[in-house]
């Protein structure tokens, strides 16, 4: 006898119910159990936003975070079909007293794709110190706000995430605001000014929450929403992802939407044996493992009779379900900050721009910023801009938005899909200092120095160049000399780069430059010199840290290196060798993407 998917699901639910802990119906919040038992919902009912239980939590955010207290929580919410569900999450509150007016503001942080396995849940990743969005969460805490992080529906024991079911996600990030205020001693006020911030899947969540807020959670004191890298038009995104770098997001969406809409997306009927196996694998993976596992795979290689995406989209319930996830149906009643990477290889830029236009046509107050880089970089580069914009909303400053713009519509600069996953660093700002060991003086590279590189995550190859204009530097040798220095690349910066399953970025390479003293002297009296290091100086560019460093400004290569002897310094060659060469020369190269522009 072959059981249908729904029969199996019902059987599982009955079995699970028998094992459920019980709480009195409509019970007051209680401290939940330790360990994974916390993720088994008790048999209780409640209204959306009601707290079921909570517990103090250990959250590891890394070195950039201020002191904080954290709790896990489980609360009532509503799925995309309007049925009650329960969702888990995390509440983090800074220890430092809030010094602004009114209650401490709250940010409901809508997470990006984490992966379908339960272990990928943000609450569990945060406990392990492996959540790839920690940098953004830490930045929000640093700004003084409470941060509420919904796991999204489907991470309780025995459940499957309803990934990208927009309404359900929107409900969850709205309901956590009410639920967090019920945690005893957490200090989260139900009437506090609140904002929702999300990127990628989180951008979709935040936008859905913004569209639903007035009808679903009118009591929340929402003052602004920030949504970046937003998947707004699902059919368009599905085509963009199919057979492309971000194919894994499409595969996960099939699992997630198939779970939320089993009658509309009959996964077991449409998937081939290979497809079913792929989905089972996807359910065991977190985002980065999945990303590389099915990169550039086409959906037709996972369907019965190799049905293509276009053929699948002709199935009315499938098409309806995808279209139902589209954003832009409602006016947003609070100011909205939208942002997108111009080189986004996962979520197409044009459909987010179209969403801006839709919202603007409905007289929403929209500000749109265009970031220069790709998807992951933009997620973390945007944090200070987002927090500044949200800070203005918390402080009651008005915004007119920029629905009216005379600028031409930006075009995507994304690397083409279907090939290697290449994160391009184009004309990134290079802030660099070189500490001369003998002279005990620093050379600061000029502000217009840049680093351009392609980091091929698939081939694990880094290939880049430094561009450093000639500059003047005072070196205090006998008297302060204006020394004109050129740091000129001797060859391309090369090395290896990788992104592991835990979202840890590893770079190991070397940049080779000549250090030249073009001239020295005082004021107008410059003496042509032309002396330089006998060989190029090798600067190791090694980094290991969270992938968020790509955008957060934390991508720094530092260490010590050795300068070769000098040559062509005329009568003073030996002196310059003594002063400039040798080991122990320190350096620090920090690279950051160019600033965003408003569109």
């Amino acid at each position, binding site marked *: 006898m072959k059981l249908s998917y729904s029969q199996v699901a019902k059987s599982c639910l009955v079995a699970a119910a028998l094992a459920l802990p019980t709480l009195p119906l409509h019970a007051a919040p209680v401290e939940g159990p330790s360990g994974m038992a916390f993720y088994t919902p008790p048999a209780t009912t409640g209204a959306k936003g009601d707290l079921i239980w909570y517990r103090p939590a250990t959250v590891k955010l890394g070195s950039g975070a201020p002191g904080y207290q954290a709790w896990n929580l489980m609360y009532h919410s509503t799925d995309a079909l309007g049925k009650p569900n329960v969702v888990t999450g995390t509440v983090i509150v800074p220890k430092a007293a809030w010094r602004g007016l009114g209650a401490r503001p709250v940010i409901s942080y809508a997470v990006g794709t984490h992966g379908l396995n339960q272990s990928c849940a943000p609450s569990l990743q945060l406990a392990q110190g492996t959540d790839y969005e920690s940098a953004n969460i830490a930045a929000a805490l640093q700004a003084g706000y409470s941060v509420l992080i919904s796991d999204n529906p489907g991470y309780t024991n025995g459940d499957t995430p309803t990934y990208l079911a927009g309404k359900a996600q929107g409900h969850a990030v709205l309901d956590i605001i009410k639920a967090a205020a019920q945690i005893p001693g957490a200090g989260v006020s139900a009437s506090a000014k609140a904002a929702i911030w999300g990127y990628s899947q989180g951008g979709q969540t935040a936008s859905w929450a913004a569209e639903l807020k007035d009808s679903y959670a009118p009591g929340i004191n929402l003052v602004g929403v920030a949504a970046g890298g937003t998947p707004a038009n699902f059919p368009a995104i599905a085509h963009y992802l199919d057979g492309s770098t971000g194919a894994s997001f499409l595969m996960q969406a099939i699992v997630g939407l198939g779970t939320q809409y089993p009658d509309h997306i009959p996964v077991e009927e449409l998937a081939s044996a290979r497809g079913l196996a792929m989905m089972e694998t996807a359910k065991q993976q977190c985002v980065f493992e999945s990303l590389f596992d099915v990169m550039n795979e086409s959906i037709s290689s996972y369907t019965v009779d190799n049905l293509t995406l276009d053929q699948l989209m002709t199935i009315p319930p499938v098409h309806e379900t995808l279209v139902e996830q589209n954003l832009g149906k409602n006016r947003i009643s609070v100011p909205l900050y939208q942002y997108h990477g111009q080189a986004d290889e996962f979520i197409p830029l044009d459909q987010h721009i179209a969403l801006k236009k839709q919202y603007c046509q409905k007289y929403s107050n929209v500000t749109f910023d265009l970031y220069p880089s790709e998807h992951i970089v933009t997620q973390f580069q945007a944090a200070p801009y987002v927090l500044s914009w949200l800070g203005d909303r918390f402080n009651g400053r008005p915004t007119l938005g920029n629905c009216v713009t005379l600028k031409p519509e930006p075009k995507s600069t994304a690397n083409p899909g279907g090939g290697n996953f290449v994160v391009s660093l184009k004309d990134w700002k290079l802030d660099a200092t070189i500490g001369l060991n003998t002279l*005990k003086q620093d050379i600061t590279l000029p502000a217009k120095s840049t680093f351009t590189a392609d980091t091929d995550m698939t081939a694990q190859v880094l290939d880049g160049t430094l561009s450093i204009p000639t500059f003047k530097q005072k070196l205090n040798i*006998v*008297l302060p000399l204006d020394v004109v220095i050129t740091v000129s690349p001797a060859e391309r910066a090369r090395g290896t780069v990788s992104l592991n399953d835990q979202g840890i970025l590893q770079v190991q390479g070397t940049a080779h430059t000549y250090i030249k003293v073009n001239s020295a*002297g005082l004021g107008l009296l410059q003496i042509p010199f032309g002396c330089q290091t006998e060989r190029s100086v090798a600067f190791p560019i090694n980094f290991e840290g969270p992938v968020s460093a790509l955008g957060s400004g934390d991508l720094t290569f530092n260490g010590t290196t*050795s300068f070769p002897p000098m040559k062509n310094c*005329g009568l003073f060659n030996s*002196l310059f060798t*003594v002063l400039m060469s040798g*080991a122990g020369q320190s350096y620090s190269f920090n690279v950051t993407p160019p600033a965003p522009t408003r569109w």
Partner: protein
Amino acid sequence: MKRGIWLLGGLAVVIIAGMTIWGQDRETREEQSASMMVDHEPVGGIGELDPDQLAAEQLAANQAAWAELGEKPYQGPVTERPAFVSSLEWRVLKNVAQQHPNTEQELTRLVNHLRFAKQWDLWHEIDPQDQTRRSALGEQLLLEIPDRVKNQELDVVHAQQMQESLLMALIPDVTERRQRAAQEAARIGVQFRVEGDS
């Protein structure tokens, strides 16, 4: 022509430096004596020298590194300007050494490094026919390379390149040169096995 440009450049630096130095450290210059040290400072100090004289002094100091052949590196404090250190260089080295906690030790290190650097420059200028001096200079450089590595003035890679370059010129026999290269490399912490060794 090129040398002339360098000379002019060097002179200009010296003049600028001299204008500041003059009047600040007269007593230092009055200290100079001793056999390996300069006999006396130029009359009237650096600032009053004409460019030709300053260039001549620098050139003389560079050439004075020849006189250091067979001499061991300085061990204790260097209180007087050695002959291979020009007045300007002496002033610069003392100034730089003062930025370090152990000024005396740093000055000694800088002086020894300067001597080595000048002798390395001389190595590139020496007439290949002048076998005696060439051999003596090469051996002295080889002898000192480990100290330069120890003091982090050379990294191991460059030190080994220097050793190979010197040995190439000093030892024509390939087998003998390889064995010596292994010995020299060992002195800077690099181990490699010469083919044929047991």
